């Protein structure tokens, strides 16, 4: 009986810690991967060869602004060429207003492995 109490006593905090860790990391991943935009505008930062957040969800009519915080030039080009920026040097911005619902994938034409997505609801 005493042994069981010891085992339960040790297992409970370990399980609780594991639960908190899993729950916390899920929340963190969700926040890192997807951002729910405010009503009027949303920001996407370009840094270290990636778009952040990678997926941004916005209501129809939102203007999304990309800012290049990287040391090297990048572009923002939608997969279906709906929007296309010029070459953005460090700290330059590009904005586009989404007037139709849908999912708009985009990439950097200088570094095609850099991709992102705007989900317009």
């Amino acid at each position, binding site marked *: 009986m005493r042994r069981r109490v010891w085992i339960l006593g040790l297992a409970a905090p370990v399980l609780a810690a594991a639960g908190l860790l899993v729950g916390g990391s899920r929340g963190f991943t969700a926040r890192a991967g997807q951002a729910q935009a405010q009503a009027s505008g949303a920001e996407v930062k370009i840094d*270290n*060869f990636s778009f952040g957040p990678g997926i941004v969800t916005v209501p129809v009519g939102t203007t999304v602004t990309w800012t290049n915080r*990287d*040391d*090297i*030039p990048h*572009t923002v080009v939608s997969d279906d060429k709906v929007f296309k920026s*010029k*070459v953005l*040097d460090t700290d330059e911005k590009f904005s586009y207003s989404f007037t139709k619902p849908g999912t708009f994938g985009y990439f950097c*034409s*200088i*570094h095609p492995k850099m991709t992102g997505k705007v989900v317009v609801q």
Partner: protein
Amino acid sequence: MSGIAKAFDPGTVLLAKHAQHVVLVHFPIALFITGVALDWVGRWTRRNGLGEAAYYNLLIAAVSTLPVVATGLLAWQFQLEGQRLKGLLLMHLVLGWLSSLLIVAVWWLHFRSRRRGSSLPKYVALVEAAGLLAVGLTGHLGGFLSGVSGS
């Protein structure tokens, strides 16, 4: 298409609009550096065989600049739709042209002295050193732009 299948698919490899430039650029860089190194060691040690090897390295380096320049210009047209370049991209373009000119110039100086049967002019080493510097800077910027180095 899976990653492995895509890597060996001729269409994907050959028609990648700007990927060829970053692949092909390694040929003139390696051949030119090797050619200059062989030339310098050949002259230092007075071994004609090394001079011969240097000449053919420089010849192929000069020839291989043509597809590199072509694919670089195509990348500019395809990926950036020929928009006006500035900053690092402009610097890379200018240094790329300079490197290509110096590589061809070094080969031509070697070619001319072989045809005339005369020894190389003394300033060839200076042109070769300038070429190495330009190639090094262009390659550094190219690596920085492509994300291979510096970031």
